[in-house]
């Protein structure tokens, strides 16, 4: 596996100290700001926590998606990046403890958990067979069963391959990828319905699951790109990982981001055009009281800027640009979730209070911590993947 000019480290690559310092600093800052935020406005805090939780889940699932995608389509160019995706998929594990405040605060967040409100409302009663606490929790458990199961199957298998070199593990992953994709589609769809859509229990949009799915795919690709470009800039990846690989990553990021924008636009246009109050009310909430600026910002930040920044061919191979664009997209994804969740949680408040500040910082802290934790245990590349050589030799 190791050639003359393609020396690959067999043991985990140490990460720069600055990263540890950044993670620590962010964690401390976030914790310091969280207590006053929680005390000053518990509802708002819970809403923000939900944003953070979904952010972490979508990042982790997005990373896992990329892993499964590689096995699904038998891609070789992404093999050098797969370990990065696997490490970051660890965010799924972290998200489980994060869910605790939410599970304890379901009554605050979700109107349909209040039986008195449901009993007097015919629509909520009609939804009660689905929107009830017991079924919600069963589904929650089911989602995590699938996600964590997939994590250990794919990621665990790949890591075991580092020591055994067993080709059967790759074949197993290739067999598991299609059913996992199906399960991911359904679980993330219903997670979107449960966690976000039911915040506004009257509202419904059949594309909502796909909306969150594409958001997760973009976010996953963005964080992989950020990590990959950063590692390459610090020379922590083998030399063979070149602009050809990053071009594909950048093109994937571009395409998925545009796909997200298309889904978002389709949802908006159809609801706007139909003009049915039950549906438009949700968008009305997001076009008043300061939220209209957030909506405009979302379009500009999540679509226009990344689109223009990644359009040209050379942009997709420029590591620095890939780095800032992917970081930007991650921020935009956070903004997207904030825009989805907060107006329905805090119906009468405007956007961007000081209580929200700690959460982006917490997200950065979590992502960095997971990265540091995982990358300290395993090599930064899947060293004995049977397709690694083909992947390193990939040319456009």
């Amino acid at each position, binding site marked *: 596996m190791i050639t003359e000019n393609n020396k690959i480290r067999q043991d985990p690559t140490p990460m720069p100290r600055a990263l540890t310092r950044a993670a620590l600093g962010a964690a401390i800052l976030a914790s310091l700001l969280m207590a006053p935020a929680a005390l000053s406005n518990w509802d708002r805090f819970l809403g923000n926590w939900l944003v953070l939780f979904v952010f972490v889940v979508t990042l982790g699932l997005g990373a896992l998606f990329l892993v499964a995608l590689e096995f699904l389509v038998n891609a070789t160019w992404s093999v050098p990046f797969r370990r990065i995706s696997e490490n970051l998929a660890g965010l799924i594990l972290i998200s489980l403890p994060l869910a605790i405040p939410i599970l304890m605060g379901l009554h605050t967040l979700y109107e349909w958990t209040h039986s008195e409100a449901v009993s007097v409302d015919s629509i909520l009663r009609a939804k009660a067979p689905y929107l009830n606490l017991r079924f919600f929790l069963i589904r929650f458990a089911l989602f995590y069963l699938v996600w964590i199961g997939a994590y250990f199957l794919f990621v665990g298998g790949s890591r075991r391959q580092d020591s055994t070199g067993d080709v059967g593990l790759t074949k197993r992953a290739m067999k598991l990828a299609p059913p996992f994709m199906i399960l991911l589609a359904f679980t993330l769809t219903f997670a979107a319905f449960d966690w976000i859509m039911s915040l506004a229990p009257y509202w419904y949009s*059949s594309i909502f699951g796909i909306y969150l799915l594409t958001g997760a795919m973009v976010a996953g690709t963005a964080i992989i790109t950020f990590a990959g470009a950063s590692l390459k800039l610090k020379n922590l990846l083998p030399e063979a990982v070149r602009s050809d690989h990053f071009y594909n990553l950048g093109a994937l990021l571009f395409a998925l981001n545009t796909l997200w924008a*298309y889904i978002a636009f*389709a*949802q908006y246009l*159809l609801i706007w055009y139909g003009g049915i109050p039950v549906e438009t009310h949700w968008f009305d909430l997001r076009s008043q009281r300061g939220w209209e600026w957030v909506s405009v910002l979302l379009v500009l930040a999540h679509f226009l800027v990344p689109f223009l920044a990644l359009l040209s061919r050379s942009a997709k191979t420029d590591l620095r640009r890939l780095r800032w664009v992917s970081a930007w997209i991650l921020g935009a994804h956070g903004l997207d979730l904030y825009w989805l969740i907060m107006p329905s949680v805090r119906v009468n408040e405007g956007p961007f209070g000081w209580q929200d500040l700690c959460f982006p910082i917490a997200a950065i802290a979590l992502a960095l911590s997971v990265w540091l934790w995982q990358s300290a245990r395993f090599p930064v590349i899947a060293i004995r993947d049977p397709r690694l050589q083909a992947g390193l030799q990939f040319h456009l």
Partner: protein
Amino acid sequence: MNKAADILEATPMVLGSPSLAQIDQEVAVPMGRIPGPTWWAAFALSGLSMLMGLSLMGYTAYRGIGLWGNNSPVFWAFPIVNFVFWIGIGHAGTLISAILFLFRQRWRNAIARFAEAMTIFAVMTAATFPVMHMGRPWLAHWVFPIPNDMRLWVNFRSPLVWDLFAISTYFTVSLMFWYIGLIPDLAAMRERAPTNAHRIIYSILSWGWTGLNRHWRHYERAYLILAGLSTPLVVSVHTIVSFDFATSVIPGWHATILPPYFVAGAVFSGFAMVLTVLIVVRKAFHMEHLITLRHLENMNKVVLATSLIVGYAYCVELFTAWYSGESIERFTFLNRVTGPYWWAFALMVLCNVLVPQVHWFRKARTSILPMFVVSILVNVGMWFERFVIVVTSLHRDFLPSSWGMYKPTLVDFGILLGSFGLFFTLVLVFVRFLPAISMTEVKASMPQAQLSVHPEEIIGQPEMEEVSV
């Protein structure tokens, strides 16, 4: 299942290692010789069907839409179902030639030309329906925003106008994309032309192409740009077609999932149609080593994947209708599953979701008969999907007093059959007169076709000036 070798080595895309010249010869074979009785029989069948369809269309233009089954409450029926059906079929071609090109899937080279031609013919067939169902098709030019003496404009807020722009753009771009792909092949045909007449025609059509690198440079960039433009274009076209339904407030139509659902469905039915036709063509013209089982297997995988996406969409639609809690929404879907058209719904689910699942098995993916049967059933299922969407939502909507049943007439069926005739006639003519496989692209992807020197060794050369010969 897969051997280790399958993971590590790419299966060759062209079997038998023909030389480049042999590829030219084999692809040019159907064009050179006089067509045999099979081609004539097929042409006669499809030509008759096409003539029947065209004359029924003319009869409709003369007598009016009363000849069709469109009536209250199902005002939009067969014509729109057929339109969406054919446009959907066209999408596979663009996906194969543009999207797979962008993903650098080399296996698409052998089938891209054919698929693109099918796109163009499918769009042409589809376009006859909106024109026909206007009632006064000779006023079809009124849909264009041309200044007129009535000082009227089209309503740009209407999805039907968006449709117009989308379909005409799609047709134009697909035609151009297909045509510029043809130019180098036409140049090769020009040089092999058997008669002077052939030579003149190919000469005109190939624009004097010689193959200078100066030309290839811009040609490749143009190809890449068109592929990059066609990709969002094809998504936008079927999205806009879905907007025809989704922007309304009819239960069963007004669902936000319709755009991606329609696009996935279009790719699904398109690939099935490409499979149906390619299986026949490769057998008839002995091109099995150029359009190999691997190509077919890959297409079957796409069919399986899109079948799952369509199945997902069915589930989510049903769930969301129930979740909405609104009695009318719930009723609409209950009516779809258990109402008078339950058999169409059952056929749709059977053909679209259940039947393609055989492709989980490698044996089914690589055997001709199963995949042929599946591809036909998928198209049947997709036609019924549009039928279910249009007719069940219209025949029982808000006011029970307005409910009714839809009865298609013989003219409706005749025109549907005729549309298949039109499509297949065009395909047969194309196969006879133009290279069905892109010789240029297949040759370019052969193992002996490219430089073996390492790319890094040849950068930094001085720029050569243009030759003018």
